[in-house]
C-alpha cells in the first residue's frame, strides 16, 4: 500500500514544526502505521525515499522505538506495565492470566488476529497499579475480573 495523498499532507504538516525535514521521521512512521497497523519493508522504503533518508537509516529509527511495529500486530495491542510498582501490586498474576486467556506469550498475536500482547515500561499511574494500555487507553486498578471484562468486551 503506497502512501496516500492525505498521509503525505500530514507528514508535510509535521515537517513544518522542525528545521530539518528528517526530524519528522518518527511522526511519519506513526502516520504510516496508523492505517496499516505496522510498518512493512515496502512502506519503510517508500517513507525513507519521501524523507530523503536511506531505508537503513530509517529502519535504525523505526526499530529503536517501542511503539513502531516492524512486524504485523493484532487489531488491538495490549501493553501490560511490568515495571516495579505494578510488579509489587501483583502484575505477575495478571500476566499469567492474560497469557493463559489469550493463549499467547509476550510479543505474540492471537490466532484470530485480535490481540497482540506486549510489555511496557511504567505508565505513570503507579497509584492505580497494576495497569495496562489497551491500544492507547489506560486501565488501572486491575484485577482478574477487570481483565476478563476488558478482553470479553472487545473479543
Amino acid at each position, binding site marked *: 500500500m503506497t502512501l496516500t495523498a492525505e498521509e503525505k499532507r500530514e507528514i508535510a504538516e509535521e515537517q513544518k514544526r522542525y528545521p530539518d525535514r528528517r526530524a519528522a521521521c518518527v511522526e511519519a512512521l506513526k502516520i504510516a502505521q496508523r492505517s496499516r497497523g505496522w510498518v512493512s519493508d515496502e512502506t519503510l522504503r517508500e517513507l525513507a525515499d519521501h524523507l530523503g533518508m536511506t531505508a537503513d537509516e530509517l529502519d535504525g*529509527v523505526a526499530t529503536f522505538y517501542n511503539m513502531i511495529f516492524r512486524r504485523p500486530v493484532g487489531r488491538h495491542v495490549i501493553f501490560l506495565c511490568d515495571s516495579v510498582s505494578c510488579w509489587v501490586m501483583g502484575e505477575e498474576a495478571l500476566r499469567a492470566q492474560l497469557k493463559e486467556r489469550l493463549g499467547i506469550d509476550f510479543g505474540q498475536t492471537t490466532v484470530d488476529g485480535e490481540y497482540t500482547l506486549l510489555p511496557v515500561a511504567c505508565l505513570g499511574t503507579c497509584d492505580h497499579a497494576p495497569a495496562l494500555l489497551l491500544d492507547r487507553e*489506560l486501565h488501572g486498578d486491575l484485577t482478574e475480573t477487570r481483565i476478563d471484562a476488558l478482553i470479553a468486551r472487545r473479543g
Partner: protein
Amino acid sequence: MERPLTQALRADGVPLDIDEYERAGGYRALRKALRELQPAELTAMVKASNLRGRGGAGFPTGVKWQAVPMGPSARRPKYLVCNADEMEPGTFKDRLLLEGNPHLVLEGMMLAAYAIEAEVAYVFLRWAYKRAEETMRTAIAEAYARGYLGRHILASPWSLELHVHTSAGRYICGEETALLNALEGARAIPRAKPPYPQTSGLWGKPVVVQNVETLCNVPVIVERGVDAYKALSRTDEGGTKIYGASGHVKRPGAWELPMGATIRELLEEHAGGMRDGYRFRGVIPGGASTDFLAEEHLDVKMDYASVMKVGSRMGTGTMIILDDRTCPVGMVLNLELFFARESCGWCTPCREGLPWVARTLAAIEAGQGMESDLELLAQQSRLLGPGHTFCALAPGAVEPLQSAVKLFRDDFLRHIRERRCPFRGQAA
C-alpha cells in the same frame, strides 16, 4: 498549607481551561516578567530561588540557564524543551500537572524561553500519555488564540512558537541529550558532553531542557518573589515538591508538600500507612534509579541534600514501598530487567553488564544462585557505576542493586541456601 502547583486542580479531574487558569491568577507571572524583568534578571531570580531540577538529577535550574549564550551574537534560533517523557518506574507526578493544569506547564515554558531568549519551544511528551497530549494540544491552541504564544507576545518584541512532539516510547528519551537526538529524528542515544546543550544542543543551536514540574515552579517564583518562594520550603532547597507513594500502602497517591517533608510523613500521614497485614521493609525514595532506604531512614527529609547524605537520592520524589510479603530479590530483578531492556545499547558496560546482572538475579530468585554471586553483583555495581558508562542509565540501575544486596543480604542468602524463593507459595 500552600500548594501553588496543584491547589487550582479541579477535583473532577477536568483540566483547567484558559479562563479558569487566568481567574486563578494564571499568566500574571508572564505579564509581570515581560513588563518588569530583563531575561538575565529572570534567570538571576530563578538562581536565587534555589530551584533544582525536578526530573531527578536536581541540577540548579538558574545555573543551567546562565550557560546559554545571550545577546545579538548568540546563535539562533534558541530552543526550550519541556521534558514530559515521564517514564521512570514508580513516577507519576508530571502526569498530574500535564493532565490537570496544562497552562501552568505552558506559562513555565514561556518564562523559561523568555529567560534564555528562545524563539521555539517543544513539549517532548510521552507517547503513552494520550490524555496529556489532548489537554496540552487544547491548551496550546487557547494560548495562541489569546496572544500568549506566537508573534509579539502581549505586544512585546518577543515571539515564541510552541510545538508538541509525542515520540514513540523509549525510557532513554528522558535523558537530556538522548531526548535531543529523538527530537531530531534519530535513534535516542545519549551524546558526549561537552559541548553542553545550552551552547550546542538541538540542531547545533543552544537549548535548555527542563522537567515539567521544574517549569511549573517558575511562574510561582516570578509571581511571589524569591523570598516568598523559598519560604514555601522547610529546607534550603526552594519551593514545594510533588511527592508520591506506591506499593502496599493504604492510600497510594501524589501530594504537593513543602520541600523537606520526611519519608515518615509521606508514608504515615499522606499514604495512610501500610495496608493491613503488610509491614514496611524498605523504600526506594524517588523512582527506580535510587538506592533503597530502610526503617532507620524514615525521618530523613525528602530533599536532594538530605537524602544524598544517607546514601540515596531523592530522584523524582515518588517513593516505591517494599513490604514484608514482597520478595526483595524479585523486586530488584524486576528493576534490573527493566534497565537491561531499556539500555540503548550504545556503550558496552551497560549493554552487556545489565543483562548479566539480570541473569544472575534471576538465577538467585529461582533458587539456582551461589554465594559468590553476591560478590559478582557487588563488582558489577562498581563496574557499571559512575565513570564507566556513557550516560547515567547504568549508574542509576546499580543504585537499587547495590543497596539491596547490602540491606537485604539475608534474603539473598536464604534464596541461595534454601535453593528457592522463600516468598513463593505465600498467600498474596
